[in-house]
């Protein structure tokens, strides 16, 4: 028994050491920095308690970034989900060129995000970009649209890039789940006279509901913490119109040199995320109880 316990320790200690160094220490250190005044160019640091949090919570920039994060996380995750689900349903059928279609649709996930965003930047260019050229050619607009520079268009434009970059994850996950649904269920339903829609609602959705839930939760968390798309396209501008909590946190820490504000914002971002997660779990449980009932 003792030998078993020792062996158990040999395997678990390195994992705990790794977790401690790579995850626990940064979290604890971030909380510690958030409670002191710490500037990048100033060696003097001192404890200020919750002062940084107090200042940030009355800062309108934080609430603007919070609203943007909510839009980006929820709209982004749901749009990625629906797009991915649509493509997954399409790819689940057999047709000529399915492998090629699967490879092409998976491409945005494989292309490095920097290359993807740079390409979109060019496409969005007001006078040289292909999107505006097409819109003008088709007579849909009278003058070119300022996709990344106008307040009203910037967030939707950034969101669109995020969606096109992120949907393949949902597509692949849902496709795998769809392929795991036994054909016999559909065959039996067909014999019983169920229509395609009835099969979709009563067989497909319940069979993959677990994957749908987990992928949606993951999608929301990833979108909430998404940094590169916004930073590469707009750096949070124009006038904070596209700032997310994570990009604002980065700006405070590494552009304005306020490590303390950056750390406090990171903690706030995580707290918001935990709240969201708890809310989602509660909703999910409610749904499950409803289903059972």
């Amino acid at each position, binding site marked *: 028994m003792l030998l078993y316990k020792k062996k158990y320790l040999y395997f678990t200690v390195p994992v705990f050491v790794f977790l401690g160094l790579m995850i626990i220490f940064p979290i604890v250190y971030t909380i510690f920095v958030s409670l002191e005044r710490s500037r990048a160019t100033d*060696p003097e640091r001192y404890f200020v308690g919750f002062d940084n949090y107090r200042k940030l919570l009355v800062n309108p920039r934080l609430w603007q970034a919070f609203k943007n994060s909510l839009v980006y996380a929820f709209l982004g995750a749901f749009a990625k989900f629906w797009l991915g689900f649509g493509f997954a349903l399409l790819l689940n059928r057999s047709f000529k060129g399915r492998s090629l279609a699967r490879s092409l649709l998976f491409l945005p996930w494989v292309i490095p995000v920097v290359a993807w965003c740079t390409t979109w930047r060019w496409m969005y260019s007001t006078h040289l970009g292909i999107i505006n050229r097409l819109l003008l050619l088709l007579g849909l607009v009278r003058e070119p649209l*300022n996709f990344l*520079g106008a307040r009203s268009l910037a967030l939707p434009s950034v969101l669109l890039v995020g969606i096109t970059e992120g949907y393949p994850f949902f597509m692949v996950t849902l496709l795998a789940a769809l392929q795991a649904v036994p054909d016999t269920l559909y065959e039996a339903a067909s014999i019983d006279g169920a229509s395609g829609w009835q099969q979709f609602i009563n067989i497909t959705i319940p069979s993959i509901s677990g994957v749908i839930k987990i992928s949606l939760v993951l999608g929301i968390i990833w979108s909430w913490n998404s940094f590169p798309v916004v930073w590469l396209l707009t750096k949070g501008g124009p006038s904070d*119109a596209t700032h997310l909590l994570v990009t604002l946190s980065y*700006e405070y820490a590494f552009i304005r040199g306020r490590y303390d504000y950056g750390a406090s914002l990171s903690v706030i971002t995580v707290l918001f995320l935990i709240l969201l997660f708890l809310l989602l779990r509660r909703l999910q449980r409610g749904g499950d109880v409803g289903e059972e009932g």
Partner: protein
Amino acid sequence: MKRQMILGIVMLCVLSVGSLLARAEDKTSLELWLISTPIEGITEFFEEVSQRFEADKGCKIDIVWVAREDMYNKLLTSVAAGVFPDIVIDILGQGIALSRRGVLVPVNDLVKEVGEDRFFKGILEMQRDPDGNYWALPIFSHPACFHFRKDWLQEAGVDTKYEQDSEGNWHVWAIDSWSDVLAVAQKVTKDTNGDGQIDRWGLGLQYARTGDTFGWVSHLIYSFGGYIYDYKEKRVAFDSPETLEAVQLISDLYNKYQVVPPDVTAWGEFENNLYIQHPEQAKVAMVINSYSIVPWCQKNAPEMVSKIGTAPYPKARYRFRVEAGQAEALLIFKTDKLNLSKQFARFMMDKDLQVKGIKLSGGYWSPCRSDVLADPYFEQIPMEMRMAMENDKYLVSLGWPTSGMTPELAEVANSYILQDITTRAAVDKWDAKSIVQEATRLIEEIFE
């Protein structure tokens, strides 16, 4: 299992100690961080520098290219982590910003070796703190280029001929001051094809959070007599009446006079050039820039060379050019290779090497020393490029009206706050007072 575990730990310790010892004994290489640019000549130049230094001193140069916009935060994080390079060549007075962290070595001795009076005053003062210590050694400047479309200005009845003043400086008098520029911009801005949309604009002022935007915004503020640091009050001050006047002009250019295309808010690093130099897509008659576009035109659009003119930056109350922050300067870090780093700095100070670098950069760099500018090479380049390079004599430090710089100023210069002024003017259409109030609040937020 226990034996294997102990063996593993011992191996880890040996590897760690070994790598530390290797690092301590590795005195035959220097780590050099440089700002990456898409200009091939600059890469070629530093490859040659590296090879020549290795041949001369037996020391290898490990070059790390860093994106310009990432350099400041990469430096801050490396300093915070305590693992930094031996040398960095960077812009915007980063040396001053880092001076309080105790990681840099002052370069007073190297400045004296070259001779303080040889450097253009503004560029050198940009590296000096209030105590008189120099924290970086200027290597290259960037030419002051106010480009204009000769053909479009002439079409609008504007005289674009060059004339010399009593001191021998070249001017285009029709666009000599900001009020001249505004008048010309209003003349040029029009709908040329009659579709009801303006397709030719007077002025292209870049918006993006880049060094170029910082350059023109700070130039405009300082040329009106505004400043960012109040030496009397010892605080960063953005609320002087002169600053307000300059910011009002920025706002008016976008909103009241509407001579700047509205989509500049999305222009990136090189787009203001694209919109003046592109043979078919050009849409602005004047742009302000920190390097010459003449070499680009010579190589890619020769038909545009005769159409592009260069003039000094417009003046307001003063003919300042506050772009000293654009000068590229060498920072030496406190590492165990200090002597080698200083040897490299001396190597970079070589006049012929600097001329070669400027030549290879194709108009991106210009001299930051009078003795380099006096080289016969600069007699052979196009007059407009030389004129832009000579304008570096108008550079003043961000610390104007007093000389020198403070870490606070350097931090503000790196904070994007000045760049964001243009967004508030162009996108949110705020008036100058609101813009200045917000900029002041954001600046105070950095130091509170």
